[in-house]
C-alpha cells in the first residue's frame, strides 16, 4: 500500500520481510450491499405501512404502561405508604428499579461513545437503537427518584433554585449529586442521539419531499436543520461527534459511579466498599448489553436485518457481556475477600446473611444469573444460536435486577443492631408500577422504530469498503447501482 514508507529515506529492510498471513476481518455489511440498498432498507421501515404486529405490540405496551400511570397516580394521591417500605427498609424496589433502568441505559452510551473512541466499527449497526434505548431507560429510571420523594410537587427543591425556606440544596448528599448526574446524562444522551440523527433526518426529508409527502418532509426537515451533506459541515460534525463521544465516556462512567456513591459513601455494612464505583459501572454495562441483545435480536429477525447485524456483531456483544460479567464476578470476589480480610464482624455478617439469610433465594438467583449465565458465551455454538443468546440476555437482566435488590434490601434489613432488623416485601402497587415501566419503555421504543431510522445510515455507509477513498471504489456490482 502506498503509505508504507513515510520518508524519502530507504524504508528499513524489515519492511521487505513483512508478509502477513491473510486473516480477513469480518465484513460489517454482508452480501456486498450498496449504499443505496442501505438507504432503501432503513427508510423503507419508516416509509412503509405500519405493520400489524406493530399495532398489536403498541396496544399491549400502552396497556402495560397504564400500570405505571395508575400506580404513580395512586401513589401521589394517597401517599408513600402504599408502597411496602417500612423501617428499617426505606429504600427498596424504588431504588432497585432506578439503578436497574439507569444501568440498562449505560450500554447505549458505551456503544455510541466508548466503542467510537476505541474505533470499533461494528458499533454502527446497533448504536442508534442502543442510544434510543438509553434515553428511554433514563426516562423510566427518572420516574422513581422523582416519585419516591412522596410530595412530588416539591421535587423542584432538588434544583439549586432559591425557595421560600431560603435554604439551599445539600451538596454533601449523593442524592443531590444524582440529580445533576441523571439530568446531565439524560440531556447529553438526547443531544448526542440528535446529532447522530441529523444526516439521516436530512435523507428522510428529501425522500419524503421527492415522493410528494410534504407534511412529513417538513417535519423531518425542521429537525434536520438544513443539513446538506457538505464536507465542510462534516468536518465540524465529525469533530463534534468525537468530542461528544469523548465526554460521554467519562459521563457514563461518572453517572453510575455517583449512583454507586448513594450506597458507598454510607457506613452500612455491605454498602461501604471502595470498589463499588467500577463494579457498578461494569454491572451496568453488563445489564445494558443484555437489554441490547434482548431488543436487537427480535428486531433483526422481524425486519430481516441479518446483513447489517451480522453474526460478528452478535459475537462482539456476547463477548462484551462475558467480559463485564467476569469483572462483576471479580468484584463479588473482592467484596467477599475483603469482608473477611477487614475482620469487621458486621461486614462479615452482611455477606453470610446474603447467602444464607432470609433473602438467600434472591442471592442465589443473582449468582446463577450473573456469574454462571455469561460463561455460556465462551462457546461459539451458544453465540451462534440466536434464540439461546436471547434467552440468556433475559437472564442477565433478571440477575442484575436481583443484584441491586440483594445489595439494597439485605443490607438495610439486617444492619448493626438486631433491634432494628425487619423484613421487607413489596406491595402490589410497587409491583405494578415497576412492570408498567417495561410498558413505558416499549411504547417509546416502538414509536422510535416506527418513525425514526433504526440505524445510522451515514455511519453504516462510512464503514463499508466502498467508502474508502483509497480503494477501488467499486466492491463488486453493488457500489453504485440500486441492485439488491
Amino acid at each position, binding site marked *: 500500500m502506498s503509505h508504507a514508507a513515510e520518508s524519502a529515506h530507504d524504508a528499513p529492510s524489515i519492511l521487505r520481510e513483512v508478509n*502477513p498471513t491473510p486473516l480477513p476481518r469480518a465484513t460489517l455489511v454482508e452480501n456486498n450491499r450498496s449504499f443505496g440498498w442501505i438507504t432503501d432498507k432503513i427508510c423503507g421501515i419508516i416509509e412503509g405501512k405500519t405493520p400489524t404486529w406493530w399495532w398489536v405490540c403498541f396496544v399491549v405496551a400502552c396497556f402495560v404502561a397504564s400500570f405505571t400511570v395508575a400506580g404513580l397516580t395512586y401513589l401521589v394521591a394517597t401517599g408513600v405508604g402504599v408502597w411496602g417500605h417500612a423501617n428499617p427498609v426505606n429504600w427498596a424496589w424504588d431504588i432497585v428499579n432506578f439503578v436497574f433502568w439507569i444501568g440498562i441505559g449505560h450500554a447505549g452510551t458505551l456503544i455510541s461513545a466508548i466503542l467510537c473512541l476505541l474505533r470499533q466499527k461494528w458499533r454502527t449497526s446497533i448504536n442508534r437503537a442502543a442510544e434510543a434505548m438509553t434515553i428511554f431507560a433514563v426516562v423510566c429510571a427518572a420516574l422513581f427518584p422523582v416519585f419516591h420523594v412522596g410530595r412530588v410537587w416539591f421535587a423542584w427543591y432538588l434544583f439549586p433554585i432559591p425557595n421560600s425556606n431560603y435554604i439551599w440544596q445539600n451538596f454533601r448528599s449523593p442524592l443531590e449529586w444524582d440529580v445533576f448526574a441523571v439530568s446531565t446524562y439524560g440531556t447529553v444522551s438526547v443531544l448526542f442521539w440528535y446529532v447522530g440523527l441529523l444526516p439521516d433526518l436530512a435523507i428522510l426529508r428529501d425522500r419524503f419531499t421527492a415522493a410528494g409527502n410534504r407534511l412529513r418532509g417538513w417535519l423531518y426537515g425542521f429537525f434536520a436543520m438544513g443539513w446538506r451533506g457538505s464536507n465542510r459541515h462534516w468536518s465540524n460534525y465529525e469533530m463534534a461527534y468525537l468530542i461528544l463521544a469523548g465526554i460521554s465516556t467519562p459521563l457514563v462512567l461518572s453517572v453510575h459511579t455517583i449512583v454507586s456513591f448513594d450506597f458507598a459513601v454510607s457506613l452500612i455494612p455491605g454498602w461501604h466498599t*471502595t470498589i463499588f464505583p467500577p463494579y457498578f459501572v461494569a454491572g451496568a454495562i453488563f445489564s445494558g448489553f443484555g437489554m441490547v441483545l434482548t431488543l436487537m435480536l427480535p428486531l433483526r429477525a422481524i425486519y430481516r436485518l441479518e446483513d447489517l447485524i451480522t453474526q460478528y456483531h452478535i459475537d462482539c456483544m456476547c463477548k462484551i457481556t462475558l467480559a463485564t460479567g467476569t469483572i462483576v464476578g471479580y468484584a463479588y470476589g473482592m467484596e467477599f475477600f475483603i469482608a473477611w480480610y477487614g475482620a469487621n464482624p458486621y461486614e462479615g455478617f452482611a455477606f453470610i446473611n446474603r447467602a444464607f439469610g432470609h433473602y438467600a433465594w434472591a442471592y442465589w438467583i443473582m449468582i446463577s444469573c450473573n456469574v454462571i449465565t455469561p460463561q455460556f458465551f465462551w462457546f461459539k455454538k451458544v453465540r451462534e444460536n440466536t434464540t439461546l443468546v436471547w434467552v440468556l440476555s433475559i437472564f442477565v437482566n433478571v440477575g442484575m435486577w436481583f443484584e441491586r435488590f440483594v445489595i439494597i434490601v439485605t443490607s438495610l434489613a439486617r444492619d448493626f443492631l438486631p433491634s432494628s432488623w425487619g423484613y421487607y416485601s413489596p406491595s402490589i402497587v410497587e409491583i405494578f408500577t415497576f412492570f408498567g415501566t417495561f410498558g413505558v419503555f416499549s411504547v417509546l421504543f416502538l414509536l422510535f422504530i416506527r418513525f425514526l431510522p433504526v440505524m445510522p445510515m451515514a455511519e453504516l455507509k462510512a464503514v463499508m469498503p466502498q467508502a474508502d477513498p483509497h480503494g477501488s471504489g467499486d466492491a463488486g456490482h453493488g457500489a453504485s447501482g440500486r441492485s439488491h
Partner: protein
Amino acid sequence: MAAGAPAAGRALVIGLAGIALTALGLLVSGGAKVAFSWLVALTFWGGIALGMLFLVMIHHIFDASWSVVIRRQFEHGLASFKWLALLFLPLVASVYFAPGAVWKWMNPAYDLAQVGGSGTVGEDVLWAKKAALLNPTAFVVITVLSFGIWIWLSARLRAASFAQDADGDLKWTYRNRVTAAFGLPLAAVTLTLAIVLWVKSLDYHWFSTMYGVWYFAGCVRAALSMGVLIMVWLWVRGDYRGVLNANHFHSIGQLMFAFTVFWAYVTFSQYFLIWNANIPEETFWYNLREMNSATGFANQWKWVGMLLLFGHFFVPFFLLLSYKRKLSRTQMPWVALWIAAIFLLDLIYNIWPSKKDGNGDALPFLQLHQVWTVTAVIGVGGICVWAYLRSFPTTKLIPIRDPRIGESLTYHESSAD
C-alpha cells in the same frame, strides 16, 4: 541494527552497580529500610512488566490492529519477569531471617509498641482473624504462584508470537487469543493477591476492595510510558522509521490519556469513599499520610499526596489533551518519563509510610534512606532493561507475519490525515 551486546552489557553493569550500592545501604541504614526500598523498586519494575503483560493480552483479546508494531517491544519487556522473581528472593529470605522487619505480621511476637501500638502482633485480634492469609507460608506460596503464572503467561505469549515470524501460521494467533482469554482473569487475580500481600498488608489493619484496581491502573500507565520511550528510542535509532507513523504516537497518547483518567477515577473513589464515611478504622491510613499525631501538623507525606494529585492527574491530563503534543517525539518522552516517575512516587507513597516510628507516625519522606530507594530502582531497573535488551536481538523487529501487521503499518485514523 540489533541493539547489540554493548548496550545490554552497560545495562547489566548499571544494574549490578545499583544493587551493590543498595547492599551497601544495609550497613548504613539497616536491613528494614533497605528492604522497604527494595520492595518499592520491585513493585515499580514488576508493575511495568505486569502492565506490559496486560497490554499484550488486551491487544490479543481485542484483535487490535494499530498496536501490532509495538507489541513486540512489550513482549521483549516480559523477559524481565524471571529476573524480577530472582530479585524478589531477598525479600522472601527476610521472611525467615528477619521476620517482622518489613511485614510485621511475619513475626507474631513483634511488639507493636515499636510503632505506637500495644501488645504483640500475635495478641492483635485483627491479625488473628486473617492469620490464615497473613503468614509466611501463604506469602511464599502466593509469591511463587504469582511469579510462576506471570512467567508462564509471558512465555506462552512470546513463544507463539516469535514462532509466527517463521511460519506465519494462524494457529499462533488463535493460541494467543486463548492465552489472553484465560490469562486476563488469572493475571487480575494474581495481581490483586500479590499487591494485597506485598503492599496493602504492610499496614494490616487497613483494607480496601479497590486496591488491586489501583495497582492495575498504575501498572498500565507505567507500561505505556515505557512503550512511548521505546518507540521514540527506536525511531531515533532509525529502526522504526517507515514503520511507525504519527497515528501510532497519537493512539498510544490517547491510551495514556484514558488510563490517566482511569487512575484518577480509581484513586479518587478510594479516597473519597473513605473520606466521606469517616470511619477511623479506614481513615487512619490516609491520616498517616497527612499529619503526625505527635505534632498535630501536616507531615511531608501530605505534600507528596498533593504532588500525586497534581502530578499524576492534572498535569498529564492537560498535557495529553493536545493533539499536537501527542505526536511530538520531543515532548512525549518527557511526558512519559514524568508519568513513570510519578508512578514510582505513588508506590513510595503507598509503601514507605508503613515504616513507622515509636509514635506510630510515618518516617518523613525526605530522609537519607530514600537514597536506597533510588539505588534499588536503578539496580532492579538495570537488570530489567538488560533482560529486554538481551531479548531484543533474538527476533525480528516487528511481527512480520502477524495477520494484522499490514493494517498496523498503514494505520490511519479518521481525523489524523
